[in-house]
């Protein structure tokens, strides 16, 4: 019987030559047989047969025969060692070392026992990442927000070309995706479990909410939940609100007597006594020991103002004022007065017109927003607004048809000159400039790509005013094709005006963005307007280095982006600023910032927080440093809700995949188990018969026997 997968092929003499050659040999042998018979040699067939066989074998070998067949053999193990890098691996289980450090130690030991060359190393949380060795992982923190253990083997197969025979996963086994243990149908899966498999108690703070703004001496509320896992029933928890470092409020919540899991709501009231951007932290203190303290506190920021800021909005009754008026009136941090005037007179806020007529009265306002009412304002009112700005007031001008950008009098010397307005029924896109995209005003999404996409979807603007940017103005967006002086007409621009500052939206039609059907568009409008108000209400003289963080709050392990804007005279030649990041209870880490391409004075750096808590960031250059910017980093709730390991999951996954489950204490036996049950594989073997000396010896042997037989018959 032929072996499995047997195949014969020829790679030497072509068959059309081999065929006639074989025929010629056969003819020669027949003639030889006839001559032996004529010589009455007995038996005549024997030398003929021997010579015929030798010739046939020679012809066969000269055709270059190659045989192929399958064999089964033992495979030396190729193992992927995967260490769970999710946040729950930070747990110490009551000991001195984190699960993460223990798992890395075990991984190194297994790798050594298997022989380093046959193992590959990975870390896995919500995604799988290959590493050169376990040593490389020691420089990292387990900050993955999820544990997708069931999916890890498939992810490894995608990430590596190596056909692994065994996958060894070192984990606490709690798959946060809710997946069941998978049957992989390929490599064996061995699991080493870390952490206690017993039901584990945990309590943490979740869903914390606070207002973004507050006022000195005015009370606000912080609301949230204490989540409790595996409660034995009736435990009490002290919940404390800390303003900066000081305890500001406290409450006690009690778990239900029945035990199990629970969400316990709390409300804490606080009356801040200091203004500023303040970190508020809610902490819980559980009566029972909590094995996962990482989620026991959560922080948020409240911008506490010394007084409510006042804002005057002047416009005509129109679609823009419908939406902007409603937005401004709905703000918590400001008190908006609305003055609506048109050709028929004053529609709303008649008493405000007295204030609008003098710069002194206008100085009561922190900000004035002026829309399309210029033709119906008295010259004295227009001049009062100009004087207000020149004396240090803040002004946002909406600059489409009937805007103040084209007004005469003192406005002729404004940074918005010449200010002629024009309509464009077909409309035009507003194009953000690189300066605009790198700054905080036009930032409507966390990521730069999302931000660019949002700006692409901005509805067309219709009317606009022409202004030539004065020296020192920042142009944030421009007209797609019209030039004002040497450059495209600015569509969003801010500039100093005397001691004050003016921000120009040189077009109409923003209301369309607010009124769009998608909630996202409306939110983008709100964010743009909030950014504009924040920008115009910030300090008079901006610092030489200004720092902006991509988010106020982030999950542990998520990347925080920092962008710094540095005034040219604050940087020495060839210097780049440095980002200083301070995690709670740790020394500051310094990260060099990289220049942003095409954006003069803008630099960026990224930071991945490895600890939960409030972090502070500062950008510094030789000419000064930015104000510290805080960011609250939270542990992933799904990772710490249940800090115990899921032994059933790990055992089942090992069982379904021909592997073995080991406890942390048995990790030293993993290498032996991998070697013992080494897999067998079928391999295809190819052999060329031409290069086998035995066959040539056989030819020689046949010819020798033939010669001997003739000699014994007396023919030689």
């Amino acid at each position, binding site marked *: 019987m032929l072996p499995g997968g047997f195949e014969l092929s020829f790679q030497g003499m072509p068959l059309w030559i081999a065929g006639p050659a074989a025929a010629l040999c056969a003819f020669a042998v027949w003639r030889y047989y006839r001559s032996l018979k004529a010589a009455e040699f007995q038996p005549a067939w024997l030398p003929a047969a021997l010579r015929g066989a030798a010739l046939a074998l020679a012809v066969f070998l000269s055709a270059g025969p190659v045989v192929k067949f399958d064999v089964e053999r033992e495979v030396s193990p190729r193992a992927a060692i995967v260490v769970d890098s999710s946040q729950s691996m930070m747990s110490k289980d009551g000991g001195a070392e984190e699960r993460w450090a223990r798992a890395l130690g075990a991984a190194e030991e297994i790798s050594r026992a298997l022989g380093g060359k046959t193992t590959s190393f990975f870390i896995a949380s919500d995604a799988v990442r290959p590493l050169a060795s376990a040593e490389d992982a020691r420089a990292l923190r387990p900050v993955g927000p999820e544990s997708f253990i069931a999916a890890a083997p498939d992810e490894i197969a995608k990430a590596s070309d190596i056909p692994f025979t065994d996958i060894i996963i070192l984990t606490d086994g709690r798959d946060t995706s809710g997946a069941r243990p998978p049957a992989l149908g390929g490599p064996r899966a061995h699991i080493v479990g870390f952490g206690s498999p017993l039901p584990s108690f945990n309590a943490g703070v979740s869903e914390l909410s606070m207002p973004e703004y507050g006022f000195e001496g005015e009370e606000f509320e912080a609301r949230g939940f204490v989540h409790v896992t595996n409660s034995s029933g009736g435990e009490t928890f002290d919940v404390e609100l800390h303003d900066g470092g000081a305890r500001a409020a406290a409450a006690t919540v009690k778990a239900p007597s029945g035990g199990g899991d629970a969400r316990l709501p709390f409300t804490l009231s606080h009356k801040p006594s200091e203004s500023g951007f303040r970190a508020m932290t809610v902490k819980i203190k559980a009566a029972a020991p909590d094995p996962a303290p990482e989620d026991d506190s959560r922080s948020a920021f409240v911008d506490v103002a010394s007084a409510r800021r006042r804002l005057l909005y002047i416009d005509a*009754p*129109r679609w823009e004022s*419908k939406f902007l008026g409603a937005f401004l009136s709905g703000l918590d941090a400001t008190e908006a007065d609305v003055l609506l005037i048109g*050709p*028929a007179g004053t529609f709303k806020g008649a008493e405000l017109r007295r204030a609008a007529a003098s710069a002194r009265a206008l100085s009561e306002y922190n900000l004035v927003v002026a829309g399309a009412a210029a033709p119906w304002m008295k010259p004295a009112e227009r001049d009062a607004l100009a004087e207000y700005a020149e004396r240090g007031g803040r002004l946002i001008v909406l600059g489409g048809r009937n805007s103040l950008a084209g007004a005469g009098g003192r406005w002729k010397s404004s940074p918005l000159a010449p200010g002629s307005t024009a309509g464009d029924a077909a409309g035009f896109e507003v194009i953000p400039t690189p300066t605009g995209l790198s700054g905080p005003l036009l930032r409507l999404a966390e990521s730069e790509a999302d931000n660019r996409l949002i700006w692409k979807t901005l509805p*067309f603007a*219709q009317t606009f005013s022409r202004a030539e940017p004065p020296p020192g103005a920042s142009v944030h967006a421009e007209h797609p094709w019209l030039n004002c002086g040497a450059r495209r007409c600015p569509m969003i621009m801010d500039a100093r005006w005397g001691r004050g500052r003016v921000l120009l939206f040189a077009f*109409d039609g923003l209301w369309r963005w*607010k009124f769009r059907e998608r909630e996202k568009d409306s939110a983008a409008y709100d964010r743009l307007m909030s950014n504009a108000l924040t920008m115009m209400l910030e300090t008079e003289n901006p610092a030489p280095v200004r720092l902006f963080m991509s988010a106020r709050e982030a999950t542990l392990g998520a990347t925080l982006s920092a962008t710094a804007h540095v005034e040219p005279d604050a940087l020495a030649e060839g210097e780049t600023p440095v980002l200083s990041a301070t995690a709670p209870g740790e020394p500051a880490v310094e990260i060099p910032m990289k220049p942003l391409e095409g954006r003069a004075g803008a630099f960026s750096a990224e930071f991945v927080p490895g600890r939960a808590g409030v972090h502070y960031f500062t950008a510094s250059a030789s000419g000064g440093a930015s104000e510290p910017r805080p960011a609250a980093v939270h542990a992933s709730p799904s990772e710490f809700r249940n800090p115990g390991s899921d032994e059933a999951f790990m055992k089942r996954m090992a069982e379904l995949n021909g592997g073995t489950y080991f406890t942390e204490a048995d990790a030293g036996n993993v290498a032996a188990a991998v070697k013992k049950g080494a897999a067998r594989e079928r391999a295809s073997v190819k052999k060329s018969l031409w290069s086998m000396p035995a066959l040539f010896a056989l030819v020689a042997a046949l010819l020798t026997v033939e010669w001997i037989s003739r000699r014994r018959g007396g023919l030689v």
Partner: protein
Amino acid sequence: MRPKPPKAKAVSKYFCGFILAAALAVALAAAALRAAPPAAKPSDTGDKFYIAQLRYGGGGDWYDNRASMPRLQERLAREFGVFPGAERKIVRLADDDLFSYPVIFMSGHGNVSFAPEEVARLRAYFERGGFLWASDDYGMAPSLRRELKKVLPGQDYVELPFSHPIYQAPYRFPSGLPKIHEHDGGPPRGYALFLGDRMVFFADINTDIGDGLEAPSIHNDPPEVQEQAFRMAVNIVYFALSQ
């Protein structure tokens, strides 16, 4: 019945396959278009101020009051300083450009009916800040009330008191709505619907403000009656703009 020849069967099989493939391609393209964010594009209304007239289903004469909105737009330009559109804009609740019109107007004598997708769209329109003004030409009110209950379940018309700001500015109407046309007798009534504390719908019933805005030759209303209609219409639009 004669069996189909094999070739015909094959052709029919290919045809069905082609139809299925085409349907799949259309569905995929539609899904892709839905998933993509809307790109910026010019608006139908440009830089002009329009109050669109609602074209609704159910058989009612939605198309009446042809000149009312263009004439009101002219009037609002004089009073508010907006740049008026000269023509009448008509919009259906399902139209893409519904959200180009923060205030829409409807009138008629007959039945009003909103399809389920129109009900959802009108609710979204209200939620985003839109305002619907219905001027009952006598007969439209009962069916409109029924349909609006689908849009804002659990809510019903609220009759506005004469002290309501809609009757106060810019023109004062101390006795509420002015009477423009007489059909069934009884005083004019103004009803509203609210989303939170924001008015999203106003109906003038038993008066027909919309007719009062028409060209004088249509209903032969005396100038002082027409003026009352215009003033009340200005108040309604002003309230929608300023609340």
